[in-house]
């Protein structure tokens, strides 16, 4: 655990030293703030003391930002060779992966924490559904965790950051919209199964304010798969099967 935290700390420092963290936070707040308060179907247009519009915007901005955060995590270390020095120290592959993963989650949580003033503002405007807001944030966090694990995996299969970024977006796109679109054209059980693979479906079910174990299991499985595949792909370097 100590080792994982050590790696997390180093990754976080590197996020902040390379300005990635600042750019990510500023852009995220800029986008989500702009569409929540100023333009489009913003809060004032809806006329309700609800953060639904913010969650929808954040849902999309995070979808694009997370691969940008995760793309360098392993790909860059593979390119410069530092992964070799890191993995020949007293750490396991798993500790490195979890450390890096945790760093991404913390950075995203920091970005989300900066949107808490929105909650305060809206709650001053009217009667806010506290449970709904809590669930909305939970949904955003779970979705970020799922996409981060996918991003970490694509970062581990290449030493080119652009390839890592695009593959993460490509895989993410299926969960984000493609499954939903396919399902909408089908009926019956097949449609239901494909629809239940879609992140959107579970995100909406969660942000409606109901914590269903189905949704938790769904996000949990994506996270597990992502991290598991990352470990497999890292272990491939040495012919361990």
């Amino acid at each position: 655990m100590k080792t994982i935290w050590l790696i997390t700390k180093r990754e976080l420092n590197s996020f902040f030293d390379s300005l990635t963290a600042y750019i990510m936070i500023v852009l995220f707040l800029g986008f989500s703030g702009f569409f929540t308060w100023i333009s489009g179907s913003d809060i004032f247009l809806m006329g309700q003391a609800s953060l639904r519009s913010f969650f929808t915007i954040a849902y999309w901005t995070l979808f694009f930002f997370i691969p940008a955060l995760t793309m360098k995590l392993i790909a860059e270390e593979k390119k410069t060779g530092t992964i070799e020095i890191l993995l020949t120290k007293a750490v396991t592959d798993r500790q490195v992966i979890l450390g890096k993963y945790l760093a991404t989650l913390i950075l995203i949580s920091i970005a989300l924490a900066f949107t808490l003033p929105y909650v305060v503002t809206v709650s001053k405007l009217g009667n806010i559904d506290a449970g709904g807001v809590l669930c909305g944030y939970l949904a955003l966090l779970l979705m970020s965790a799922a996409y981060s694990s996918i991003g970490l995996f694509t970062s581990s299969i290449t030493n080119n950051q652009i390839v890592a970024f695009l593959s993460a977006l490509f895989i993410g796109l299926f969960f984000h919209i493609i499954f939903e679109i396919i399902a909408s054209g089908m009926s019956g059980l097949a449609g239901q199964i494909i629809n239940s693979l879609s992140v959107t479906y579970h995100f909406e079910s969660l942000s409606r304010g109901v914590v269903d174990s189905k949704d938790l299991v769904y996000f949990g499985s994506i996270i597990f798969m992502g991290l598991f595949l990352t470990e497999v792909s890292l272990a491939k370097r040495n012919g361990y099967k």
Partner: protein
Amino acid sequence: MDIVIENLTKRYGPQKAVDNISMRVATGEILGFLGPNGAGKTTTMKMITNYIAPDEGNIFIGGKPVTENPHEIRKHIGYLSENNPLYQEMPVIDYLSFCAEIQGVEKNKIPGRVIEMIRLTGLNREKHKKIGELSKGYQQRVGLAQAIIHNPKILILDEPTSGLDPNQIVEIRKLIRELGREKTVILSTHILPEVEATCDRIFIINKGKIVADGTADSLRKQARGSEILRVRIEDGQPDQIYKALQSVRSVSIVEFADRNLNRFDIHCSAGDVKREIFKLCVEKQWVLTELTPYETKLEDIFRDLTMN
């Protein structure tokens, strides 16, 4: 801790990068690992550090196989890899503390260790800079510092002096020698004088196979099986001298090195050849003005062993 390697083989596709290598490095020994580019040095070192797994064979460190509990054994290994990859954006001190902590150095001892490493590798003036701002030589020192910061019992150094200037090379070699008194060191290099200056034993591989293993002296003997003497004898007829020299016991070949100066190269097997030559000169009233044992250069041995 010693290192024992048994029948190590690693394939990349159909090509064998390392082919059935066995060796043993004792505690307190500095092993020089030589070989042309692509001979399998780096691959072997990566397998010892357990970064990649061998296809066949075993590596034991301190009697335990490295694949069994890699994460424990790595605490005792310091590794400087070939291209010395470092986190360019990290300041030197932060990086060294990170390495110390991850290798399990106790927290209250870390600042002391970092300061000691900085002093030992001469990084004092550069310690607040980011690693990416340092010159190649200084980065190499950081690489060395991160390898020894946790005081490992085993040091694996892949070309430790590459990119250093001559003064630094001398310093680093001295440092390695000092470290090698109590640690087991394997270092790879292309620089042959370096091996002679630092290593107790030499290990030459070519195309993944062992071609030589021994001290510099034993390799010389093995390579030629004979000694060469350069002799200059004055006050005599070249041909007469030539004949006389040939009749000396244990002399196998006599060559003219320079006929006009009466210079000869004498190939001889062991024995008291120098004495015999002296006696011969006294007897014939010749003047012996030069007698130099001619050492076979390590470069020649290396070339002989790896060119075919």
